[in-house]
């Protein structure tokens, strides 16, 4: 056990060393001028941009990145929550009845591969350029994985369970609440995880196109003004948002599905 633990620590250190080596490579490539600094800023310049933007360096920072990050995270989280709510509600409504499934599912399968961002032009012409429009597209685009996962989870309920429900004369609502949803839970959580990724992507694209303030707009403007260090700071922040949200959800998934493990 002790030896195992030590091997684990060594492996952690090793993978940390690989990451540090990658950053060192970046440092060398940018400082030695292998790649033009117009495209690849030095790590220290990126870090300085981050500190300044996030207002971590005393009073001389402008703190705009902080506001942008809040806006993007807020848009992503709201869109994702709406998507999860409506995805589960609609998915349960469609999934609970085999006949509704037979009529509606082919249409859902057709819409599934449609890129969520392809709805942006349509939404712009219906709602105009405003924050609500972006939020709508984020929620709509992120809803599909949740909806389809819920339908699938309901379709895959063990037939004997539905027989039990019929024997117990459960109402449809009771069946959804006591059997359908718990059964579909692993599918729904996997769908919600995918939805979170989509929500972040669509939020960023929406900010870029509809020029709503946020990280998407910030990195686009930074690129247009050739401020590479600000651009990289934005990319780093977006990566952090993706990493943190995914980790949080993985943690929640583990907690919520604990009852499944033997």
């Amino acid at each position, binding site marked *: 056990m002790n030896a195992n633990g030590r091997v684990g620590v060594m492996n952690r250190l090793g993978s940390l060393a690989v990451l540090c080596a990658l950053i060192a490579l970046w440092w060398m490539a940018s400082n030695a001028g292998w790649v033009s600094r117009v495209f690849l800023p030095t790590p220290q310049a990126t870090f300085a941009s981050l500190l300044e933007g996030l207002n971590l360096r005393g009073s001389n920072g402008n703190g705009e990145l902080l506001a942008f990050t809040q806006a993007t995270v807020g848009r992503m989280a709201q869109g994702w929550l709406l998507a999860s709510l409506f995805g589960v509600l609609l998915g349960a409504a469609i999934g609970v009845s085999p006949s509704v499934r037979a009529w509606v599912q082919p249409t859902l399968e057709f819409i599934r591969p449609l890129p969520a961002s392809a709805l942006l032009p349509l939404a712009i*012409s219906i709602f105009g350029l405003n924050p609500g429009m972006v939020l709508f597209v984020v929620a709509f685009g992120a809803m599909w994985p949740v909806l389809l996962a819920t339908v699938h989870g309901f379709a895959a309920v063990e037939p004997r369970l539905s027989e039990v429900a019929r024997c117990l004369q459960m109402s449809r609502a009771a069946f959804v609440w006591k059997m359908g949803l718990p059964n579909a839970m692993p599918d729904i959580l996997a769908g919600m995880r995918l939805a979170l990724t989509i929500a972040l992507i669509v939020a960023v694209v929406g900010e870029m196109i509809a020029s709503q303030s946020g990280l998407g707009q910030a990195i686009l403007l930074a690129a247009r003004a050739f401020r590479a260090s600000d651009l990289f700071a934005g990319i780093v922040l977006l*990566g952090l948002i993706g990493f943190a949200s995914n980790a949080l959800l993985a943690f929640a998934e583990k907690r919520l599905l604990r009852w499944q493990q033997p």
Partner: protein
Amino acid sequence: MTERRLLRWLRPWVFPALLVGAFEWYARRAAALGSDALAPPSAAARAFMGAALDGSLWQATGFTLGTAALGLLLGAVLGIALGLVLGLSRRAAQLGSLSIEVLRPVPSVALIPLAMLSFGFGVRMELAIVAFATFWPLLVLVQSAVQQIEPRLLEVSRVLGLSARERAFKIVLPAIAARLFVALRLGVAVALVVAVTVEIAANPHGMGYAMMIAQQSFDPALMLAWLGWIGVVGFAINAGMVRLQRVVARRMGVLP
């Protein structure tokens, strides 16, 4: 009996027909009230025919599909190669794990401005982003596929004294072929979505840009035509990949 079959044929079309009908009614009413933001589906169909006849449809579709395919090729080759290495060597997998965990969550669209800055507009920027976006899922899926190979196969390769290259091409790749196709199918879907997204957000070529420009020039009929066409293309390609994957799985002796 024939009625039954007819019903089964018609059933998938009823719901979309209702949706299109409702949209037609709504858009006509909006147009009658003086709005030019929406167009009825019948006008979209006419705009679609126009775009198909003057060739702009095929040119933009070809650009998007070609770029997505090239980007997928690049991302898949790199992802499969690294996935094989990380799958075969537990050590390499552990050493690389932290770097992958840090780099993978970067949303692909965050690289649009960077690609714009370094490549300018055109094929190369879109290619780079599609390759980045498809690289990660292929890497992860190939790695897990390799890790699930029957260990005895790898023992056999060791006993036979195969070189690393022979081992990869004669033992490992055939063993993961069915799973590889599942991964590639996912890669195709990702590549298409990312290509269209890049065109909508920045790159002035292809289907996404054609839709964006139709919206900006107040031509809602053409915009809806593009939206429908993007949906049809995406659906057809995904359905084709599912079929191909089933054929491969059957050939490889895995029951679907």
